[in-house]
Structures are given as C-alpha cells and as structure tokens.
C-alpha cells in the first residue's frame, strides 16, 4: 500500500505540474485562473500522498522482515489479474475498430464471447446463442427503435 501511494503521489505531482505548465503556455491569460488552481491543488495533494506513503513505508519496513515467499505468489496472482483486465480492455479496443469498419454484430459477438470467457464462463451451448441473439437484438433495437445509424453494416 505505501508503495502504491508513493507511485500515486509521484504521478499526481507530475500531472499537476503538467496542468500548470500547459496552462501557462497554451491558455490565454484571462482564462488561466481556474486550471492553475486545479493544477496546484493536484500537486499539493500529490505531495501529501507521497509524504504519507514514504512515512508509512519506513514504518512498515521496520515492522516486517522475511516475507518474500508469500510476496512472490501475490505478485504472480496480481499479474494474472492484470492480464485479464488488460485482455478485457483489449477486447474493447477491438470492438471500437471492428464496429466502425467491419460489422456491428461481429464486433458485439466478439466482445460478449471474449469477455464472458475471460470472466470464467465456459458453457458454449449457452454462450454462443446468447452472444448472437443479444448482438442482433441490440442492433435491431437501436437501429429500428432508437434510430441509431451504425457506421459499419449489420453483418
């Protein structure tokens, strides 16, 4: 946790500094007040989080010693989790391109099947029909009822 806070603090300071610098360089003077206040706010809060993170890390280091084996399994488990999340995000990006340039239904079927499999669903006899029916129903409802025109064709 303290390490996370240190990382968060550093990122916040960097982000806040970027807001301040960008505001000074790119935004007209009369409109600078609000973004500058926000930038400084983020920098100050980031510094506080960083300081607290360092303080807690020192405290934690003093209290713990020799728990590396448990930490290694945790790291492996964490990596598996993050890969799954990254894969879901990847599916969203695939959807973004496929629904625009290839086909809405195909994009939606890929998204539903891919996400459900990543989340641990394995009953294909249910999954495939559900994905196809949902995709077609969503397309027809949004197209016919809500008058939405999708960029790519149906199929």
């Amino acid at each position, binding site marked *: 946790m303290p390490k996370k806070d240190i990382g968060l603090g550093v990122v916040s300071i960097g982000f806040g500094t970027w807001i301040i610098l960008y505001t000074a360089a790119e935004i007209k003077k*009369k409109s600078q007040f609000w973004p500058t206040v926000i930038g400084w706010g983020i920098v100050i809060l980031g510094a506080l989080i960083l300081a607290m993170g360092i303080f807690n890390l020192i405290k934690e280091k003093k209290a713990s010693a020799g728990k590396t084996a448990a930490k290694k399994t945790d790291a492996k488990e964490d990596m598996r989790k993050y890969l799954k*999340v990254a894969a879901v995000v990847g599916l969203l990006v695939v959807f973004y391109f496929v629904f625009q340039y290839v086909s809405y239904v195909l994009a939606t079927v890929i998204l539903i099947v891919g996400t459900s499999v990543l*989340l641990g669903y394995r009953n294909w006899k249910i999954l495939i029909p559900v994905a196809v029916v949902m995709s077609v129903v969503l397309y027809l409802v949004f197209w016919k009822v809500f008058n939405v025109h999708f960029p790519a064709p149906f199929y």
Partner: protein
Amino acid sequence: MLQNILAGFAALFTWENILFLVFGTLVGLIIGALPGLTGNMAIALMVPITYTMSATTGLVFLTAIYCSSIFGGSISAILLGIPGTISSFATTLDGYPMAKQGKAGQALGISTISSVFGGLFSAIVLMFLTTVLAEFALKFGPAEYFAVAVLGLSCIASIGGKSIIKGLLSGFIGLFFAVIGQDPQRGTKRFVFDIHLLSGVTLVAALIGIFGVISVLKSAEKKSKETGPIPEVDHVWIGWKMCKKLLPTWLRGSVIGTIIGIIPGAGTNVATFLAYDTENKFNRSKPKFGEGNPKGVAAPEAANNGVTGGSMVPLLALGVPGNATSALFLGALLLKGLTTGPVLFTEHADVAYSLFLAFFFANIVMAPLGLFLLRYMKKILSIPESLLGGIILAFCMTGVFSISSSSFDVLTCIFFGLLGYAFYKFDIPTAPLIVCLVLGSMAESNLQQALVANKGSYSFLWTHPVALIVLLISLVSFFVPIITKMVKTYRKTRHPEVVAASDLAEDTSDEMDDD
C-alpha cells in the same frame, strides 16, 4: 401547486409511461438483486436509451430503476448473505440469519413493505420540500449559485471514503475534466486536443465508463465463486399484525433516510447504518439484533429507500447533485436539454411534477411486482456474473455510441472505465470525481458572472447574505468530516476498543460510490 400536480398526473399517466414504469421496476429489481451489478450501473446503461424518449418517459423509467434497484439489493442480502448493493449491507445482518432460520419469505416480505414505505415517505417530502426550496432559489443570482456549487463541492470531504486526501485528489481530477473545452465566459479553448473535446467531456459517456465498464473490469480480476444453496421462499405476505408492529420502525427509518438523503454527500449506507443503530437502541424484543430480528431488516430498508427521494431534493431545487445517482439523473436531464434548479419548475413544471409522482408510483408498483417476483428470484440469482459481463459491455458501448452517433464517445467511455479502475486500484473514491465533473463548470461560470456583475471585486462573497450563509455552511460541511476523522484517529490510537464497532460502517462507506 394543485394545478401543477394535476399537470404532472396528466403527463405521467400515458400507456407509454406506465409501461416504462413497470419495465423499469423490473429491470431495477433484477439488476439490484444480482450481486456485483449496481443500481447506478443500471441507470448509467439506460440513460442513452432515454435519449429517444420524451423527457417524462425517460425520467419515469430511470426513477423506477433507481427505486427498485435499491430494494432489489436486499433480495440477495437476505437469500445469499451478499448485499446486491452496498445500501443493503445492513439488511444482511438480520435478513440472512432470518433466511437461515427458514424465514426467508418473511424477511423478503418485510424488506419489500419497508422499502415501499420509505420510498413513499421520501416521495412526499421530495414533492413538498423541493417546491419550497426552488421557489426560494428563484431569487438567486450568480453569487448565490456560486455558493451553492461550492456547497456541493464541499461534500467531497465526506464522500471521500477512508482517505480524505485521496477524496480531494479525486475531486480535483474531476474539476480538471470539467475545464476541458471552452471557457464558459470567454470561449477560450482549454485542453482541447481533439475537435470532439471542444464542447467538453461527454458527461454520460464518462458516467457509463465509470459505472458500467469498471464493474466488468472489477469482476475480471475476481475469482469466480459459487454461491451457496439458496433458501426456499415461502409466503411473503407478513400480515397486518406485523405491519402494525413495524410501523414505528418504518417511520424512524424513513425520516432518517430522507434527511440523510437530502444532505449532499452523506450517502445511502450512512442512512442505513444510522437507522439500524437507532432501531437497535430502541429494541426491547427478541431475538437480538444480528440474530434475525425483523426490525433489523425493516429499519435499513425503510432508510435506504427513504434516501431515494431525499437525494433528489438538492438536484431538483438547486441544481446540485449530492451523490452519484443524482449526477446520473442530471446527465439524463441535460441530454433532454433540460436544466435543474428553479428554471425546471417555471419552464417545465409538468416534467418536474411528473418526476415527483413517478417517485411515488414507482414505489407503489414495486410492492406487488416485488412480492410476485420474489418467488422467481432463485432462478434469477443463479445467472452467473461471468455471462453478464460481456452483455453489460456490449450495452455500454452501444448505448454510448447512440447518444450522438460519435465513436469518440466510445473512446471517452473506455478511458473513464480505465480511469475508474485505476482509482479502484489506488483506493481513490470515484464519487468526488463525478460530483466535481458535474459541478466544476457551474462553480466556474457563476463565479465569473458574479465577478463581472461586481466589476471584478470578490465583495459579493460577504455582501450577499444568502451566499455568505451558504459558503459558511460549505466550510462546516467541508471541515466537519475532516475533524471527525482526526478525532477518531486520535481515539483509535488511545482507545482502540471503543471505535472498533463503528469501523464496520466506515469500511462499507468507502464503497458508497458503487451503489
């Protein structure tokens, strides 16, 4: 007022509205009951659909989802011991033991009637208090509105969860996203990296990302777990004798829920735990609280549905969303080109009053529909979360695209989903981000207008009495949670056993923005 109520009735009672009232109740009940899916997520997913409806129909639909999803959360709390929404956490404490004792039907019956009672009570308060407040707010100028926006922003300290600093950081990041686009007074471009950002971040796309996409990302990292056996639900009607016995509990719970709901940032789970604790202090009957006492189900359920109407008061009367749900309603109203605050009552009184009545009738519809549906809940609760994940994402993406047929909105939604996930990993609450994203531009534009009206002087901050009072209240609202937390930390280090009991409520409040 009577004329407006009649106009509201006329606007509400069309076949289309009644159909969406029933359908919304059904959707809310099912989504609320499924663990992992929240009422806010359901509302966020449905906002784009309301775009093609009339303003009244859209709001009726969302209101029905809101009210019934809060109640729906109690179903899994009682049957599985897992609250469907965080607002049902307190219900688990006595509802689940009742189900284990073979009284699942009774517990569900109590939760249904209690929710309906709390919801109806808060709907009445909503109607009368909002109109009085809105009438008063008609006299407000930019100075007063700036102060009101600051009051809304001040609640970020109380909705910030465990760490106030992280809550504030979340709020500042929300303010940053609110400045993207054009300066409200001068039209200067700020952080416009793409032409689509000229009119700012699309609020609904951001909200769908934060509520919809994030719920799937969270379940992606969880290990799928089997739910235990679901107890049989026998007769759910509790009888008039029990109703009479629970009446004082319902009244206390409803009052607590409604008052807490009105306070920006206080949150549903604060209301439920407060109601539960109050009832525990009043209780003289057996079994004890925590061992399956019917009052332990009635109090939090009356309170959490009491919050529904209460939370709409600041939004409708002043234009300030006090929680994430009211921010979602604001998003829906903005999509229809409507603004909240007194203008809503002067220019669209029929919409405003039909919304009040929708809160009332959504709760009435909830009673028979809820009691009927409870028998089939066993089947609904067995739908695996893993199968729903893909469907939710497909719904999110399609819904976001449908708002303005913009692929850029789809990207915005994915971005905010990722941001929400990063917030979750770093223990940063998302509620302050949402509140500030909505209120940032309101605060800035009113400040600029007030400064122009006062020739660049900040004297309006103390020469306008209403603005001054509201700003003082904002200071109190901002600093009280900070001081309370500091006192608690001090007491914890000195007397750890005294504060241990209250930690449970605090831990759950960290997830309040999920509801």
